[in-house]
């Protein structure tokens, strides 16, 4: 092992703990009137024929601006994201932990056990990225296509030594961590004092 390799290895080992260190998640969202939403986004939602009223939001985060439609359909809480041009980005819906395949759930559980002393799910969402037709079939018939990219977005309360925080963790369909973000909680002094 030459000197450069040793130095690079030390640097890598020093950096490694930070690879999975949570980034902070900042996000603001505003309710939008449907008249201000791009037509193509509205057409996509209309083609689903949601069971409930559709609420539109504009979301601003570090990754950019997007529009999101939230509604209930087939007894599921959906959230569908579009970019500012109305191009479909992804489809999300809330699931129970029992809906995660046992093999994947066990991997997620093992990973969370290694990261936190204690943890508790707050919310689990399935996230699908794919073609219009595949996503429509998924929404209406609950039949996911193999061509779609699937991930789990999990909001949980995680306790590390001396510190409990809220995190949003993204796992892929194999139960491997893709991303960790610490959710920045809003000030609540006006509620507390």
């Amino acid at each position, binding site marked *: 092992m030459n000197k450069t390799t040793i130095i690079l290895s030390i640097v890598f080992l020093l950096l490694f703990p930070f690879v999975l260190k949570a980034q902070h998640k900042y996000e*603001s969202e*505003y309710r939008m009137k449907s008249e201000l939403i791009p037509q193509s986004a509205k057409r996509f939602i209309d083609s689903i024929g949601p069971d409930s009223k559709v609420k539109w939001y504009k979301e601003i985060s570090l990754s950019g601006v997007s529009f999101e439609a939230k509604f209930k359909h087939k007894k599921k809480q959906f959230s569908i994201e579009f970019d500012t041009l109305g191009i479909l980005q992804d489809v999300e819906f809330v699931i129970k932990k029992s809906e995660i395949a046992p093999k994947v759930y066990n991997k997620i559980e093992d990973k969370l056990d290694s990261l936190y002393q204690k943890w508790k799910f707050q919310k689990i969402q399935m996230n699908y990225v794919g073609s219009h037709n595949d996503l429509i079939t998924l929404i209406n018939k609950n039949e996911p296509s193999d061509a779609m990219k699937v991930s789990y977005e999990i909001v949980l309360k995680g306790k590390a030594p001396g510190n409990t925080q809220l995190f949003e963790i993204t796992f892929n369909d194999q139960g491997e961590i893709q991303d960790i973000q610490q959710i920045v909680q809003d000030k*609540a*002094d*006006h*509620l507390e*004092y």
Partner: protein
Amino acid sequence: MSAPKNVYAQSQTRIGILPSINYNHKINKDWDVNFKYESRHFVFENNSLESSNFKYEYSLSDISALVARKAGLNSKFVLGFLTRIEPDAVSYRTIQQFIFQTKIESFRVAHRIATDQTFSSNEATEFRLRYRVSAEIPLSGQKLDVKEFYFKFNTEVLNSIQDNVYDLEFRIVPNIGYVINGQQKIELGLDNRFESFINNQTSLISWITINWFL
């Protein structure tokens, strides 16, 4: 900052100014401090037995300091001290609180369980046990952001005992608030206080309040 006071049991209406400035400072991830200044200035009085008139009258000032220690992700223990300054008297209050937050759909709810003890030279010590629920409903979107309005609803039940006399009070306080920036909020509300429930001599006192959080 202004407050009408309607004491129906006494057929009396009083209107006043009630400014409150509430400063919160985070020391580190576990500790924060809160300082509050509130004063009452009556400007109008209407008594059915006498004439009604506009008359300025300073009533009192409350200055408080609280220290909070985070207990969990959404809970904290609070200890504090309040000084009440009236034209002819000063009283002191020690405060203990436990506050925790929950979230129901898109609104946050804070629960406050508190005890306090008020000491003054001319009255017996008053002991109170109180529970308050405060709910915040953003008026734009699912969470509260800068330059957005919100609705806040407080309701509180207060038990008090002084000189072996027990009393019960309810407060219902709807507020409209606005987030000025990341640090500041301003609220306009109506503070309705139903007092003396136990003695069957219930009186309602209503205050219009303006709170500035910074």
